[in-house]
């Protein structure tokens, strides 16, 4: 499997969420994803980008287009926020420390093929999702 291209973008403010959605949409279309798969990965990206801003205080998205037996799109959201104390709890539907629905993390996980989360208290959070074609 080869990383064909890597693109990095800021996830700092609300308008960035819209930009993230557009870029992810373009990339998934370029990889030949079906409309449903495009919609799923864009929706997951929207949830995670908003989390990065609200809970992580802003961060970055690294987007990797993967080429191999199957094409894929990998998105790495990284922030230097307070970190997540209990990841299992954070992934549970309906749990939120903010004012949302508590569907962001768990929902995003359901919409992609691979989901990884690494977080350290006081250092930040990195969420990596991959959707294969």
């Amino acid at each position, binding site marked *: 499997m080869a990383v064909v291209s890597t693109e990095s973008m800021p996830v700092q403010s609300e308008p960035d*969420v819209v930009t993230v959605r557009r870029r992810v*949409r373009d990339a998934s279309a370029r990889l030949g994803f079906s409309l449903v798969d495009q919609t*799923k990965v*864009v*929706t997951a990206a929207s*949830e995670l980008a908003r989390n990065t801003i609200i809970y992580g205080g802003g961060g970055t998205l690294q987007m990797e287009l993967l080429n191999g037996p199957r094409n894929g799109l990998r998105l790495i959201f990284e922030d230097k926020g307070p970190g997540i104390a209990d990841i299992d709890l954070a992934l549970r539907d309906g749990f939120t420390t903010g004012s*949302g629905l508590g*569907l962001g993390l768990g929902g995003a996980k359901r919409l992609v093929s691979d989901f990884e989360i690494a977080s350290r208290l006081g250092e930040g959070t990195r969420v990596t999702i991959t959707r294969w074609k």
Partner: protein
Amino acid sequence: MEKIPILRMGEFLLVTIQVDMHDRLAMTLQDDLTQMITVSEARGVLIDISSLEIVDSFIGRMLGNIAAMSRVLDAETVVVGMQPAVAITLVELGLSLSGVRTALNVDAGMELLRSSLNGSKVLYGSRVD
């Protein structure tokens, strides 16, 4: 500031969301709509989301809020035109939009609003008897 236009058509308000919905715009629409319902004494709100390429949990929550707020203000809300890919994603995300009435397209949505309005008039009439 960017705003989503709200059109008045008789007893109903029509909203077509055609822009990429960012969070603040969604909040503004929520406020504007409740304001308009009160001012215009509208009995129904039709929201066309056929141009929306995604509905995430934030937009989903906004649609739920609008439906709940308008119900309190004695107006029905119908969301129409959801793209199939959006519906599939929404359910997988974990959002069922419970409490939000939906219809396939604008025509079906208007029909639903009219019939529920007529239904409530008949109901009130029979109560007086």
